[in-house]
């Protein structure tokens, strides 16, 4: 055990070099500072449990009196999709259809189905319509009905529409998951996930007892994967994990939750005062914002057990960083316990993208791989499609984000291969509402390829945009927003080399650097402030003294565009300046279409990208 701890510690030390943690620790000043040893222990919470902890699996298997509501119901999505799916080839080509019947999920939504497979084999119907409450409940284990009603007395339209692809076991990509609909989405997701976990578990227990009676192994008993964990939930922070687990507890209908105190201590912390910050920020950064955790949860007949060893868990709740740490720190660096994930839920993908995208790719690459070690797997019970290495084509992926980035779309296209279909929500988007009139000049750059994008952008910025800005009557107060750290470094180097009067603030800056920078800028001691979008994500500063905003690239989060642009509104009030003298300049290329659409709206985006002119103005 001590050896393992040491390994975990070493893993963490290497990780501390990783930028994501550094950034976090440097930036995170307002939440109470944690002593470093504490963080170390905390970061790999649950790691020690991978190896240890004798499990009392047997105890629960004695009291078998299982209601298996759905056995034999050939129309049940669980039956069609997991228990007895028809054999299928690997999906090769996908075709998409529009779904207009679920407006709450977007009027331009798509369903993608593999061309070489009959997807109707995996779900009872191919209709995408708002379900009725009764239809939802008919697919759900009876013992979840009452507890769910307690948590979620009324179904909203959003929930009933969301349930349609969700309960069909389709892959789902939701792009309007913001802080206002947390309960609506998560209640439904948790219900569906628990339903799946219960159905699988009940079937296994029932078969255990039948098998003991007949003393034969028949093919009907193939009811599980290589390892027990069947649902993986990826969340950005400990606080979101705490809220998620609380929901699981309430909806599960189980009274008891073991280790609750330890859990609360480690995952829940009192909220800091964010009174000046926007609501979505308050929501995301409430409580414990630690980004490294990995927790195993097991369900028994009477209780939910937290901190169970991963191989004995039904459910893994983790942050991308925490899970990767565990996977890499694991005995032979393997991820066998992720071999049989049947449902992968990623919530708040937008916040995760701000942390580090490589970790999430790392995880998805390693889901549903045939394990390297046997780990006490009963091979007479493993389902055929696991043996055929087709589990990744049946895994349901539920991805939820506030806005879509190309990286997320690539994840959805490349790693979500559910043969029953992939639902992607798409909205007709309105332009952002600035609630004030400001000149916004959108400048299209036309690089010949994606590779040349950053080069062309820099060239345009340094050769035409910046010189023209400096020729203005009052060439101060230029706020230069870098969409990511690479651009930030490129710009900083340029400004430094050419002796511009500037200050720079990124997620790696110290609080004193930031404080000094803001004062210099407000007092016109520096003409230019270089500001990174990620810093804005973590801090949400208001920058005083801004006269011109330059978006070197558009921010992924449309909120940031509004917030940063509205710094100008403050300047108008503070300095009594005519708003017509203040400008926003934004650079974009055709690869920025997704971000651009959120800012200028779906109606305009086509013209912005494909129109003859390279500059467009909004007022």
């Amino acid at each position, binding site marked *: 055990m001590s050896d393992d701890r040491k390994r975990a510690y070493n893993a963490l030390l290497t990780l501390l070099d990783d930028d994501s943690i550094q950034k976090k620790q440097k930036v995170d000043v307002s939440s109470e500072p944690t002593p470093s040893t504490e963080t170390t222990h905390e970061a790999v919470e649950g790691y020690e449990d991978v190896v240890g902890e004798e499990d009392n699996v047997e105890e629960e298997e004695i009291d078998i009196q299982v209601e298996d509501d759905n056995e034999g119901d050939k129309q049940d999505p669980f039956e069609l999709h997991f228990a007895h799916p028809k054999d299928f080839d690997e999906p090769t080509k996908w075709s998409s259809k529009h779904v207009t019947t679920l407006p709450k999920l977007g009027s331009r939504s798509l369903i993608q189905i593999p061309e070489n497979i009959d997807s109707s084999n995996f779900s009872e119907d191919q209709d995408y319509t708002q379900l009725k409450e009764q239809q939802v409940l008919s697919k759900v284990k009876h013992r979840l009905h009452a507890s769910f009603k307690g948590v979620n007395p009324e179904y909203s339209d959003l929930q009933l529409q969301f349930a349609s692809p969700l309960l069909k076991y389709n892959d789902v990509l939701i792009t309007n998951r913001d802080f206002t609909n947390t309960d609506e989405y998560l209640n439904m997701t948790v219900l569906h996930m628990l339903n799946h976990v219960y159905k699988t578990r009940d079937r296994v227990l029932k078969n255990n007892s039948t098998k003991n009676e007949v003393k034969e*192994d028949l093919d009907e008993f193939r009811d599980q994967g290589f390892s027990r964990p069947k649902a993986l939930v990826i969340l950005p922070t400990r606080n979101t994990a705490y809220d998620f687990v609380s929901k699981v507890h309430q909806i599960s209908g189980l009274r008891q939750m073991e280790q609750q105190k330890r859990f609360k201590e480690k995952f829940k912390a009192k909220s800091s005062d964010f009174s000046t910050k926007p609501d979505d920020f308050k929501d995301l950064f409430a409580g414990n914002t630690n980004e490294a955790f990995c927790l195993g949860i097991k369900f028994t007949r009477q209780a939910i057990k937290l901190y169970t060893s991963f191989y004995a868990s039904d459910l893994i709740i983790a942050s991308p960083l925490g899970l990767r740490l565990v996977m890499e720190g694991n005995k032979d660096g393997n991820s066998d316990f992720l071999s049989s994930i049947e449902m992968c839920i990623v919530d708040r993908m937008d916040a995760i993208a701000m942390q580090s995208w490589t970790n999430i790719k790392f995880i998805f690459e390693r889901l549903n791989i045939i394990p390297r070690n046997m780990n006490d*797997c009963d091979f007479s019970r493993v389902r055929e499609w696991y043996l055929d290495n087709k589990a990744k084509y049946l895994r349901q992926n539920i991805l939820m984000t506030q806005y879509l980035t190309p990286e997320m779309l690539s994840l959805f296209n490349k790693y979500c291969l559910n043969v029953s279909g992939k639902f992607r929500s798409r909205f007709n988007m309105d332009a952002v509402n600035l609630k004030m009139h400001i000149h916004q000049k959108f400048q299209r750059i036309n690089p010949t390829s994606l590779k040349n994008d950053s080069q062309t952008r820099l060239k345009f910025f340094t050769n035409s945009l910046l010189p023209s800005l400096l020729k203005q009557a009052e060439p101060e107060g230029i706020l230069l927003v870098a969409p990511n750290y690479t651009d930030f470094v490129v710009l900083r180097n340029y400004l430094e080399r050419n002796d511009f009067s500037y200050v720079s603030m990124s997620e790696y800056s110290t609080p004193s650097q930031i404080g000094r920078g803001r004062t210099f800028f407000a007092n016109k001691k520096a003409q230019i402030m270089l500001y990174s979008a990620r810093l804005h994500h973590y801090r949400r500063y208001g920058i005083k003294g801004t006269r011109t905003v330059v978006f070197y690239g558009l921010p992924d989060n449309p909120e940031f565009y509004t917030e940063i642009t509205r710094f100008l509104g403050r300047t108008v009030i503070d300095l009594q300046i005519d708003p017509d003298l203040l400008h926003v300049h934004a650079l974009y290329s055709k690869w920025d279409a997704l971000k651009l659409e959120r800012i200028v709206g779906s109606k305009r985006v086509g013209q912005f990208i494909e129109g003859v002119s390279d500059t467009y103005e909004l007022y």
Partner: protein
Amino acid sequence: MTESKSESAFKKLGLIDILVESCEALKFTKPTPIQEQSIPAALEGKDIMGFAATGSGKTAAFALPVLQALYEKPSPLFCVVLSPTRELAHQTAQQFQALGAPMGVKTAVIIGGEDNMKQAIALSRKPHIIVATPGRLLDHLEKTKGFHLRHLKYLVLDEADRLLDMDFKEPISKILEIIPSQRRTFLFSATPSKDIESLQRASLRNPVRISVSSKVTTVDTLQEYYVFTPLKHKDATLVYILNELAGKSMIVFVNTKDEGTRIPMMLEALGFSCIPINGNMTQEARLGALNKFRAGSKNILVATNVAARGLDIPLVDVVINYQVPDNAADYVHRVGRTARAGRTGKAITMCAQYDVIRYTNIESELHGDKKLPEFPIDKEGVMLLLGSIDEAQRQAKMSMARLHERMGKGKGGHRNKRRRTDDQDADD
């Protein structure tokens, strides 16, 4: 005419039509002695104790009755065949697969050195026939949850003498304890011995004893030749023979790994399509080489002794001993690669001035006073080849030197020099 006669020959042994057809499809013309004797007894439901050498067709002798029983009463995990080597296990499984293809038989090969997990998955698909080396099979019986042999009907101990030679005694006796005692058992061995007798007592019940030949001999359909050549012209003579027999599938046997690497290089340089199999190669590489050979994309296999035992390559026409084997048993194993199962074949042994005594010893042990005929060689033809072979030999030598250097055997002092020559070559 002969066909209808032979068809009835297999049928006469009591085999069902579907298997007789398989035999025909595989071009088994008539049953070998061991098949003739053991199949009827096995079909009667008796245990068999058979003594037969490799290449006598004994794989089919046990595979056919097992498949027939399986056909009558199909059930998963029906038969286990214990094999001493990995190669033999693969071949046995292939033979089962080939003979049982029309009835959809599922086989699994469970041998050491391969991925445990893949095997566990293969076992959980419930194959009918498991061909295994004893150690690994026991491993799975003890560790792989959900795998058991409670319904096993047939056990085959193949090449039992070598099973015991290779220290498989302990796993075998453990396996015998685990599997059901209500079963049929076949035991095959090249030679009888005390150990075999005790193994028989432990595993068989009132077996029928079948002995085809207790002494190592070569089969009648084999034409054996020797070629006497000075060591200096050995390569040229080999090339001459290969040219003479062009188009046939051949195995060239050598005694050392180095020769086993050099000769293919030389032959490649001369434009022959050949492939090596030797102890330097991994298990996968060996199987890969065998498959290429079997598929016919390469028709000359250059093999060391590792390959000499237990390989069943059905369509070999000629075996060439580039070097005289150490003893008669090795010789028989080597030439046993051809003229199998009633077909004809040639074996040519190349003998240089230093090998004469070894050669005559083997000759007299196997054939008594009878002398083997010399393979006809046109000496002048050989001389004509010398020029082109010189170049190929030089190339092979250099590749070998490079190979040794890469494997860390290179002599440090020569390194730079050698590299320089390489560069010059490249410039040329």
